[in-house]
């Protein structure tokens, strides 16, 4: 198990290096940052001085290693839009909002999908099963940006029950964005829970448990669920990364002011240092979460833990 964890750690470090390199490539493909910083009216002298100050005269490999060193320390230069502020500071300032939204969506998604998926599997072929599967089918097809707008139309505009946008530490502000972000993952996880449960139900040990007269509840919760949960953990980990990315759109709809909205605003304003820092933070979080999930997976599954 120790070897496995070490190998996964090394793999994650490699991927983080790859992410930083990809961000460096993005920087270099977007053109000369000096043009963006100084504008069209500046003199050639000013341009050359700033290029020298920023080290853009150096060979590409020197720039790359300097970028790598800075990135490891979380330094992605100053924002072009918010002069004087470090890009990473700006991103980290907005990050808790995004994590809070993604976290709430994950909890909602896991609780609902495991409950619905289990009920659907237990009542296979019945009305409840068909209803849940139909819901899941629609949940997977509905674009979250449309769902968000529809929820605003119904619950904010028509009924006036909930705020249409904005961020405040109140449950009212969390409800619509959380549902909007959670639905796609919820649908996927419900289908997975159901099919995982159905697979386990046909296993010999479940037949044995039933044959020795255990109640349905003990069979489902004590035996079937535990074995279904193991592969689900991996999917939930991957889903959290998707939620972070999905938050880009959800934050835009609800003016949430998190990293996602910052990223889109920065792309439109061509504030590339902030774009790099935001892309790095989201991708690095995704890698880190997957690492944690993989380690958790080995701990949950005795077959891996003991091997």
């Amino acid at each position, binding site marked *: 198990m120790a070897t496995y964890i070490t190998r996964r750690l090394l793999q994650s470090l490699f991927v983080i290096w790859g992410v930083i390199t990809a961000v460096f490539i*993005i920087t270099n493909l977007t053109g000369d940052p000096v043009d963006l910083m100084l504008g069209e009216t500046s003199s050639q002298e000013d341009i050359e001085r700033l290029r020298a100050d920023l080290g853009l005269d150096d060979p590409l490999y020197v720039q790359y290693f300097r970028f790598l060193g800075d990135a490891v320390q979380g330094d992605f230069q100053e924002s072009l839009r918010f002069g004087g502020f470090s890009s990473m500071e700006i991103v980290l300032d907005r990050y808790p909002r995004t994590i809070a939204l993604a976290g709430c969506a994950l909890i909602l998604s896991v609780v609902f999908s495991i409950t619905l998926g289990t009920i659907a599997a237990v009542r296979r072929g019945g009305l409840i099963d068909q209803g849940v599967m139909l819901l899941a089918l*629609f949940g997977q*097809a509905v674009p979250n940006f*449309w769902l968000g707008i529809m929820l605003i139309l119904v619950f904010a505009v028509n009924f006036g029950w909930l705020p249409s946008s904005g961020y405040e530490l109140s449950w009212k502000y969390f409800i619509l964005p959380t549902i909007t972000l959670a639905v796609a993952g919820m649908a996927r996880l419900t289908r997975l829970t159901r099919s995982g449960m159905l697979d386990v139900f046909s296993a010999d040990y479940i037949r044995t448990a039933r044959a020795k007269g255990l109640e349905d509840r003990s069979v489902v919760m004590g035996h079937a669920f535990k074995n279904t949960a193991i592969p689900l953990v991996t999917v939930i980990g991957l889903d959290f990364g*998707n939620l972070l990315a*999905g938050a880009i759109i959800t934050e835009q709809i609800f003016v949430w002011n998190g990293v996602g909205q910052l990223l889109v605003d920065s*792309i439109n304003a061509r504030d590339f240092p902030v774009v790099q820092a935001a*892309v790095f933070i989201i991708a690095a979080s*995704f890698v880190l979460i997957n690492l944690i999930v993989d380690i958790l997976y080995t701990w949950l599954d005795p077959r891996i833990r003991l091997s």
Partner: protein
Amino acid sequence: MAKETTIQGSAREAELSHLFKEVRDRPSGFRRAARMLRKNRIGIIGALVLLLVAGAAIFAPIIAPHDPDAADITSRLTCPAFTSCPRYGTSETIEGSTNHLLGTDNLGRDILSRLIYGARVSLIVGITAVVLGAAAGSSLGLISGFYGGIADSLIMRVGDIFLAFPYLLLAIAIVAVLGGGLLNVIIVLAIAGWVPYARLVRGSILSAREQEYVTAARAIGVRDSVLLAKHMLPNVLTPIIVYGTFAVAATIIAEAGLSFLGLGVGTKIPTWGNMLSDGRAYISTAWWLATIPGLAIMVTVLSINLIGDWLRDALDPQLRNIE
């Protein structure tokens, strides 16, 4: 003894002959799939809806009732036919007009016509990006699985880095570099989606590599390229087709998402994502602007997912659990 051998021999012949007949009469993969489609009513509904959307996209200039870009400020924000809404800027209630079945937008452009033209963008981007991504990913997966070694490690590790970026984030990051536009969006979504195909094909090739028919083909001197293209690729096509179908649905949503964020094909071309984004500003006064394009996306994606479910069940029952 000799008699016993003859009896055994004829029993074996009978068994072989029975097996041969069974194999000969067994329907091929696609015939079986077609037979299963006839049984699967939901699959038929999905296929019909997709045909309708594709037909609308192909014959858009013929069936669209108006020019999708023709603005008519006098009929701006007309509500859909058979509904009523307040006239823009006044409290007077007006009825929708059958001249604009799905109403008009803030510039007086016909929603139905824009919806029909928008189907073109969604389907072109969805299908082209998936085909390109699948072609690139499958080729890399073939090389990776067949040759192994450094090529395998390199391709798979680059794939790991791509997977570190959630799909939409990667697309947004590349659009930030390349800029929007139809071609760029297709390229971006193809680049963002190649890895699963590479992994899928690599896995299949790794197991196929050990099969006897590959050893036999190699022994008689079949070239690697022929072996890969003629013998091994057909064996991995089924999972690619099934995965690719679901990917078309995901790509249509991603394209609409990029357009919604203002990072898509641009505002000059009518797309469902653009229409939704424009409609957002009028959500309290003109519900149809955001509702209708969203419904179009959902119905199209739903129909493709239904076809994907059917294909998976018909072509490869083993994939049913990989959702």
